């Protein structure tokens, strides 16, 4: 079991960061008030995370421990959650996907609808809470999660791709890869030509 102090610290930092971001789109965040009193339990099996989300007007409360009724509990891997979050039809994705759900699904759909309306830059608050690298990567994750189903999704994916290629250098940029492939092709052709010349010279030597 994770030390409650560590778990509580992580949940507290995430809550502070999310609320700083929600404060940037107050009108949409205020709609969370409609779900005040609901308790969502999010159990992520891979990577492991387990916490409760309680919507309040204009903000969310995150708790590592909750002693009381839970409205909706969902359980799955981060990939399952991402799949649900990016589904065109979240209700169908919930029914057909790998996510296990206990309780009432309607409030969960409402929570998704509100979060999808948010137009937020998660970067600044997360970077101030978690530091540059982790904050940026979390922001990218949240952008992907909260922007599902929006036309802006393409732009988020493009930004993510740019980040992976240009900033984090996790993968080489497409242009570099194409140049490299060109060079390999050219080298391959030169090797072929050289092989052909050698073969021709060898046959000449044999003939002489």
């Amino acid at each position, binding site marked *: 079991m994770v*030390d*409650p*102090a560590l778990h*509580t*610290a992580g949940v*507290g930092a995430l809550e502070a960061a999310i609320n700083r971001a929600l404060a940037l789109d107050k009108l949409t965040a205020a709609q969370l008030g409609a779900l005040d009193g609901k308790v969502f339990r999010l159990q992520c099996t891979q990577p492991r995370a387990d916490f409760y989300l309680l919507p309040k007007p204009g903000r969310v409360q995150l*708790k*590592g*421990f*909750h*002693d*009381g009724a839970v409205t909706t509990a969902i359980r799955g891997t981060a990939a399952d959650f991402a799949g649900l979050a990016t589904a065109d039809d979240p209700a169908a994705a919930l029914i057909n996907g790998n996510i296990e759900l206990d309780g009432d699904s309607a409030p969960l759909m409402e929570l998704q609808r509100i979060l999808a309306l948010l137009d937020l830059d998660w970067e600044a608050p997360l970077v101030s809470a978690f530091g540059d690298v982790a904050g940026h990567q979390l922001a990218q994750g949240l952008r992907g999660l909260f922007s599902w189903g929006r036309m802006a999704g393409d732009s988020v994916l493009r930004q993510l791709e740019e980040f992976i290629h240009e900033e984090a250098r996790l993968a080489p940029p497409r242009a570099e890869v194409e140049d490299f492939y060109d060079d390999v092709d050219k080298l391959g052709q030169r090797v072929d030509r050289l092989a052909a010349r050698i073969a021709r010279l060898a046959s000449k030597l044999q003939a002489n």
Partner: protein
Amino acid sequence: MVGSVRRAQMMSESDKTHFGYQQVDEQDKAGLVAGVFDSVAGRYDLMNDLMSGGIHRVWKRFTIEVSAVRAGHRVLDIAGGTGDLAMKFSDLVGEEGEVVLADINDSMLRVGRDKLLNRGYGTNIEYVQADAESLPFPDDHFDVVSIAFGLRNVTHKEAALASMLRVLKSGGRLLILEFSKPGNPLLSRAYDTYSFNVLPTLGRLVAGDSDSYRYLAESIRMHPDQDTLKGMMEDVGFQRCEYYNMTGGIVALHRGFKP
């Protein structure tokens, strides 16, 4: 404080108890503890942050979550010191609820009250100078009783636990947040070095008082460990007692219910 001294005087005059590592007469302990907190009250918050690296806020946040306090509840925060828990409880119980911040030490109570008033808290919080061993409240009165970093300073812990049980409603819960015994021997040694070398120096530099912080370190070592305290709670009548170790057992949160 006067009440506790008087109460202590009613006990056997020859009984000894521990004050840190020293053996002192029982009737003297409350006064000595009061001296410690009179000395540190002004810079208590700052020292807590420095001593724990800010982690005491996390320990208290977890305590609030486990308390399950909700709107309309009546909550007693004993040894409430500078009001960290009372503030959160006040938000949770709302206008229809009530929070009582009790502390035996008038210096701590005054610092806590000023802090809460300055932050706009007032309508649902009451301040009471009270001895944990003989709480001045009716039977079956509170939904939740909490005591954070206070029980180790109480002379007669069983009497205090019995008093807390009495003022709780049936089904109400007691939460004890207190320094405890780290489970890992390596962590334990590092923690000892920190407590007896770093802590008093910090106390001298920041609060101008190394002796008080040496007392805090010693009193932590003399406090019953996790299982002993759980047993003490069960002995006075609490049920479904359990504890959560935090930060490797440096701190433990005990919870028990009044049947």
